């Protein structure tokens, strides 16, 4: 009996051990670059220059982070980006939900035509300069609205959401109709609660898009106080490589590498922190789907 249990344990262990080993290696491979960046951001100038930093900071210091705090623009940029991300995601979600829900209903007249027009923009656009002129003449140049209004609805997200709405059983809505609910009530009380997984997914798509958006800000934003985080990060990261103006002051550049890494940490952590919060919707969503399906 004793022998048996030992040998049984052993057989189970081998499979698990190999699994865990492989998965751990995978985790390390995925996690290492990020950990390395964090370690760099906390390491001393000497350690960074000598290239000895791997998993953990060497000669721990906080100078890079102090420098970031000292450079007020990072926080200004962070505020701008958070604002744009929140507004952009909210507006994007609302418009996408309304459009997708309405266009998922067969009774809407001309819906194929409207869908066609929306799809059209996926394949053709006006090009940078004409679009720029339109935005400028609409008075959005150098306004934050230029960052989230022109790109408010993403066609791909719209299609994904419309497909999802189509798959919600009609009987549910019909039942609500019979109870006297209006279209708007059905959307808010029946469809949306069932659609949390897709809303979380699309919301995340939008949020990540706005968080990482760099090109629009580059083109449309002029005032330094309206620069987004990505614009700031890029100019910080490339500052060292573009020393065309020669000596740009002491101290400022000494921290270059660690400072770059610290900026990357500051720029990535907030959006990474959103994922765990949304995780539960993904899980719940899968279960919901299986029950209803």
């Amino acid at each position, binding site marked *: 009996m004793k022998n048996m249990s030992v040998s049984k344990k052993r057989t189970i262990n081998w499979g698990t051990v190999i699994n865990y080993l492989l998965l751990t290696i995978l985790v390390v491979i995925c996690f290492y670059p990020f950990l390395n960046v964090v370690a760099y951001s906390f390491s001393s100038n000497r350690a960074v220059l000598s290239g000895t930093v791997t998993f953990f900071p060497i000669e721990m210091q906080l100078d890079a982070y102090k420098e970031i705090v000292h450079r007020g623009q990072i926080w200004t940029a962070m505020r701008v980006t958070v604002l744009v991300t929140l507004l952009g995601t909210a507006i994007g979600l609302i418009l996408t939900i309304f459009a997708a829900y309405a266009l998922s209903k067969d009774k809407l007249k001309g819906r194929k035509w409207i869908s066609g027009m929306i799809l059209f923009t996926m394949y053709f656009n006006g090009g940078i300069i004409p679009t720029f002129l339109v935005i400028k003449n609409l008075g959005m140049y150098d306004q934050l609205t230029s960052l989230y209004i022109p790109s408010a609805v993403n066609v791909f997200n719209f299609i994904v959401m419309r497909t999802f709405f189509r798959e919600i059983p009609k009987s549910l809505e019909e039942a609500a109709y019979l109870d006297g609910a209006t279209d708007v009530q059905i959307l808010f009380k029946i469809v949306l609660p069932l659609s949390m997984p897709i809303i979380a997914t699309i919301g995340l798509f939008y949020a990540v898009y706005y968080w990482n958006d760099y090109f629009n800000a*580059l083109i449309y934003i002029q005032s330094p106080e309206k620069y987004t985080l990505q614009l700031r990060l890029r100019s910080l990261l490339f500052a060292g490589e573009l020393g065309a103006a020669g000596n*740009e002051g002491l101290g400022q550049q000494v921290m270059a590498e660690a400072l770059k890494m610290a900026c990357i940490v500051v720029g990535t952590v907030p959006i990474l922190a959103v994922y765990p919060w949304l995780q539960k919707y993904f899980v719940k969503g899968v279960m919901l789907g299986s029950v209803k399906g």
Partner: protein
Amino acid sequence: MKKVRRFLAGGLVFAMAVSLIGCKSTGEVSKNADTKGTAASEASEAAGGKEEFKTTYGSKKFDDVTITVEVFDRSNAPEGSTVIDNRWTKYINQEMNKVGITVKFVAVPRADEVNKAQLMMASGTGPDIMICYTSSIVEGFYKDGGTYDLSPYVDGEDQAKNLKEYIGKDCMDLGRNQQGELWAIPARRSTTASTNLFIRKDWLDELGLQAPTTKEEMYHVLQEFKKYKPDSFAASFWVCTKASDIAGVMATSFLKNVKDEKAYAIEADSATSLIYMDPGFGEYFKWMNQLYNEGLIDPEYYVDTTENALKEDFVNGKVGCFESNVNYNVDSLRGSLLKVLQSTDPKADVISIPPIKNDNDGEIYNKNYPINGAYLFIPQSAKNVEAAVTYLDWLATKEGGFTIFHGFEGEHFKYDDSGVPCVIDAGFNTKDKDWTRHDLFLIGNQGYYKTADEFALATSKECPGYENYVLDNFKNASVGIIRHDPTFTAPTSTEKNTEISVIREEYFVKLVTCQPDKFDDTLQEFKDKLKKAGYDQIIKERTDYYDGVFAGK
């Protein structure tokens, strides 16, 4: 279904119509710009030409004119200020208001300067004074009619006096075309020093060797280094760090055509151009190939595409002789590498040496930057070119550029015995003005200095404890016959850039790492591929450009 198709077709027609209307209106815009341009030039001709515009600071009182000026944003503004609103922009306005000009700054992220310039030019939203480092782009804007010819504002005897004096004729002419039109004002570099050869002084002393002055001596030193420190790399020259751009200082010592200024200007478009034309450059690669096969350079040097490996080797004491940017060993901008090295190995010492003698004629040639840096240009959207040029002129004065760059006497700097402005408290200056001084001082690169010696002296004061290193570095980077990097480029080379880069990157590694007996064949293969890529055309275009623009200057 039919209905849908009809709708879609209708939509398409509508979209096309809209885009056509778009074309029409932009066409009108550019037409307007054209007429404005000719009107301006007619006006200047009608009024007897050049003398109409008064652009020397103080010679004309403007009637409350506002000009806009581009300034690079490097995300380094201290808390509470921005690049467009700080102590120095206020100072500028205080001084410019005296002649009735208000200066508004327009920030452009440094890393996206070119994209942004092209966008602003295309949409007519550029500031009155714009800045760009790429000559072909700026000259292109002028050819397309997008920018002003500045010669009516600058060339007259009483015009822009300060500006002309600071920049100098040679430098100014780099912004001029064959017809004498001034498409841009080139900013003058205070120093054109570009590269240094560095060597471990302590290793030399330990081995009782002298700093090498010829190819043979260099080879001997490297061999001795290898014996002395077997786990280090004896050498790291240009192709080991960045195989692009123009050949480094070590390679220049092998060039045959470098003695002819014109030939060098035409061939030094990029390193690829040199290897296509100059037999000496092949000799350099042959030499590098020998070093490589004898284990004197890092066997995996080609893996490192940034300069980080060299930096690591430097601070870990793993490299004996190398070339890099001027002042690399002590420059605080690059992390005060020697200081870092000495913190672990106090005996270590890295000094710069003059370039070794040319293998062909025994002269010392020094590869230097062009005498200008950025190009300043004024787009057609500018309303008052006269005021804009007046601002540039003011930047050349003592109250203007000098003060913006060095600050106020007593607060930021004091004069040393020879009259050179020297920093009092580097830490204070960094926070107070150094972060923006280069970008506000448009008309010069690397600061407001009359001569390169002044520059070196002032820079040495910014590296306390290493003053003599700095002075030596700049001396060694300027000794001998100077060859400036050419500033112009051929249309074909821009067009074929990607194709040529791919070939270049492949063969630069092959030439260094192949077996010595395969070297000649590899070199021939390389040249054949370049020929196929259109190199004869590039050389022809460059020769034509040189003959057209520089001949007789």
